[in-house]
Each structure stands twice: as structure tokens, then as C-alpha cells.
């Protein structure tokens, strides 16, 4: 039976850990709220640019190289969005697993990675993946300029012919407690034909074709920005849930330890009593 003093020390240490997890949970909750707000702020733009791109592509075939499918797909690139920091449950491992499965399925092509976030970078570096570029320590704050920086590099490599297809892998923020790892094809772009909507006879300035070519790079920028925001909000959500679980486990552990402590204490008292009784008996 453990010494009462040892158990007491353990209880104190678990309590301290619980304080930390509780604080982290609250911080994550606040950060998540902000991230969700930022995500909601993009909703109008997101709806509109999708709608416009789809309706334009229904009317003209653009000449942008981003729209042309390649005859042969030899090199596939992935933009992997993960977090810089851990302690967020299965958030990063979901992403990593999805990428690994994808690489296995496409073993006939060479898979290259653009990585956002330290966690995925460490993981794939260990496994000797070919990493084209990494962006780490962005601090979980994603601005449109960050996205532009990433896409600038990605678009350039695409035009240089470094890869033929591009996918985006990120955690989609479904709800506070649920993030789904998602794989989305980004290049070559294809838009769903106008979903049953009436065609409007716009006056195009300049031409529909030129407009489509102009909107395509922006669409790419925005898709990446959107993925970063989803992932950012998801990260905080995942961390909040993980920390909540940790806080609750700490509670359970404290309960168990307190029980053990009391048992040990009672046993010690019983022993003492026995000693006294035995001593008294011996004196008779």
C-alpha cells in the first residue's frame, strides 16, 4: 500500500495538470469563436465566387492553363493543412492518415507535398516524402495574404510543370466537436455546370472568356484561404474537446486517488490502533 504522503503528492500534481487543461480549454474556446467568426465573414464572398465561376464556365471555355486537364498524370501535389501545435486529439493524425492512404492509392504517380503546419511536416519528413515547400509557425492566424503567399508558390510550380494535379487536404469544420478530414481536387479546376439555375444574359466586360481566366487564380487563392480558415477553426475546436476530455479524466483520476488516500489513511489508523491494543495486552 502506497504511503499516504505519496498519494497526496500525486493528487496535488493531477490537480495542477487539471488547472492547465482547463485553462487551455477556455483559451481554445475563445480562439475558436474568433476563428468561426472569420469563417462566417467569408461566406458571402465564397458563395458569390463559386456561383460566378460556375456560371462563367458554363458560358465559355477559358484559356487559363489552370483549367486544362493534363493528358497524363505523372506528378500529383497535395497541399496538406495541419496545425503547428499538438494536444488537439486526432486532428493532425486524421490528416496524415488520409494523405498516406492517398499516396498508397496513387503509387503509380509521384506524390509531392506542400505543407502547412509543423505537425504534418514532421510526420512526412520522417517518412521521406518529397516536400516541395513548407509553411510553419504561422501561429494559427491566417490572413488572405498568407493564402496568397502559398498559392503564389503553388501556382508557379504548376505552371512550371512540377505537377499535373493538385489536391487540397484539410480538416473541415463541421461542428465544435467534429472535424472531418477532407480531400478536394483543386487543379486542374473544374466547376460544376450551373446547377439548374437560369442563365442570365450578362454584359461582360471584357469578355466572358477573359473574365473566367481572371477569376480562376482568385478562385484558387480563395479555396486555399477557405481551407486555412476551416482548419484553424477546427484546430481550436479539436483542442477544446481534447482538453475537456483531459479535464474530465483528471477528475476521475483525482476521485480514484482520494479513495486510495482514504483507504491508506484508514489502514494506517487501524494499524496504529492494533499496535496500541497489542501493547496494552502485552502489559497485562
Amino acid at each position, binding site marked *: 500500500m502506497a504511503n499516504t504522503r505519496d498519494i497526496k503528492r500525486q493528487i496535488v500534481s493531477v490537480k495542477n495538470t487539471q488547472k492547465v487543461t482547463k485553462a487551455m480549454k477556455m483559451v481554445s474556446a475563445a480562439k475558436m469563436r474568433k476563428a468561426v467568426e*472569420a469563417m462566417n*465573414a*467569408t461566406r*458571402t*464572398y465564397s458563395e*458569390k*465566387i463559386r456561383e*460566378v465561376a460556375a456560371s*462563367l464556365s458554363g458560358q465559355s471555355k477559358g484559356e487559363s492553363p489552370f483549367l486544362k486537364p493534363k493528358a497524363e498524370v505523372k506528378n500529383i501535389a497535395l497541399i496538406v493543412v495541419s496545425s503547428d501545435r499538438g494536444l488537439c486529439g486526432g486532428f493532425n493524425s486524421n490528416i496524415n492518415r488520409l494523405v498516406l492512404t492517398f499516396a498508397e492509392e496513387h503509387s503509380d504517380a509521384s506524390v509531392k507535398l506542400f505543407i502547412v503546419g509543423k505537425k504534418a511536416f514532421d510526420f512526412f519528413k520522417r517518412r521521406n516524402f518529397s516536400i516541395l515547400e513548407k509553411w510553419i509557425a504561422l501561429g494559427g492566424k491566417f*490572413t*488572405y495574404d498568407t493564402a496568397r503567399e502559398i498559392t503564389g508558390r503553388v501556382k508557379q510550380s504548376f505552371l512550371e510543370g512540377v505537377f499535373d494535379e493538385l489536391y487540397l487536404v484539410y480538416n473541415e469544420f463541421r461542428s465544435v466537436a467534429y472535424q472531418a478530414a477532407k480531400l478536394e481536387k483543386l487543379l486542374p479546376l473544374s466547376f460544376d455546370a450551373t446547377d439548374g439555375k437560369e442563365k*442570365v*444574359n*450578362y*454584359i*461582360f*466586360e*471584357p469578355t*466572358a472568356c*477573359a*473574365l473566367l481566366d*481572371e*477569376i480562376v487564380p*482568385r478562385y484558387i*487563392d*480563395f479555396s486555399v*484561404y477557405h481551407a486555412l480558415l476551416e482548419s484553424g477553426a477546427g484546430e481550436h475546436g479539436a483542442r477544446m474537446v481534447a482538453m475537456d476530455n483531459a479535464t474530465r479524466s483528471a477528475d476521475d483520476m483525482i476521485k480514484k486517488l482520494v479513495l486510495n488516500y482514504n483507504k491508506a489513511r484508514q489502514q494506517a489508523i487501524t494499524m496504529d490502533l492494533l499496535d496500541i491494543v497489542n501493547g496494552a495486552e502485552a502489559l497485562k
Partner: protein
Amino acid sequence: MPDKLSLTLVSPERLLVSCETDEIYASGSEGDMGILPGHAALFSSLKSGEFRYSVEGVTEYAAVDGGFMEVLDDKVTVLADSAELGGSIDYEAVKTLKEESELELAKYKETDGESTYLEKYARAALRLQIAERYRKSV
């Protein structure tokens, strides 16, 4: 015919304006244009420049750094690459920024970095112009 245009000005990062207006003026890539209620369906790209709209006789200014504008059934949607409203521009800060970028631009003239500095300068200059206009109007 309706007598109002409903305007939505958004950048990827946020929604800037959503209101009813009487008249809208934008710098299209093919030339400046004014939009009044009853305008035909239009889709145009915008170059960076001044954007203004009037609400009950008061003209509001905004700096728009390129993007697109859609006019459909008296609903005007502007998808700006980035934008700032006249009232929210810090005049002094933009002024110093413009001066700084002017110097930078002179320093990097005819080098590889020129285009980035040119862009920075153009942004600052546009914002300063909008801020000045906004100051005059209030």
C-alpha cells in the same frame, strides 16, 4: 422601376458594405462606370481604384484593389481582392506609408523587386486619395 440599388461590397476576409444606395460608381477594367437603378445585367472586372456610392445624397468612398462587379436585378455585388472604406482609413498612417513606399520605389527602381514595391506604392497612393476625398466630404 425600383429606385434603389442594393449594394454588397465584400473582400475575401469580410463583408464591408451591405446597404441600399441610389448610385454607384466604379473603376471597371474597360473604363469607369456609373450604375443607376434599372441597369442591365452586367459582369465586369474592376481595376484598382476609387469606388463610390451615394446613400440619400451622401457620397461614401472606398478603395478597391481590383476584383469583380456583378449587377443583376438592381443588386450590385462587388468581389474585391481587398478593399477599405474611406472612413476607416487612417489618414496619417497612409500618408507616411505612401512616403515610405515612394522612397523604397525609388531605391529599387529598375531592379527585380520593382513590381512588388510598385504594387505597395499604388495601394498606399490609392488609399491616401480615398482618405483625402473622404475628409473633404465630411
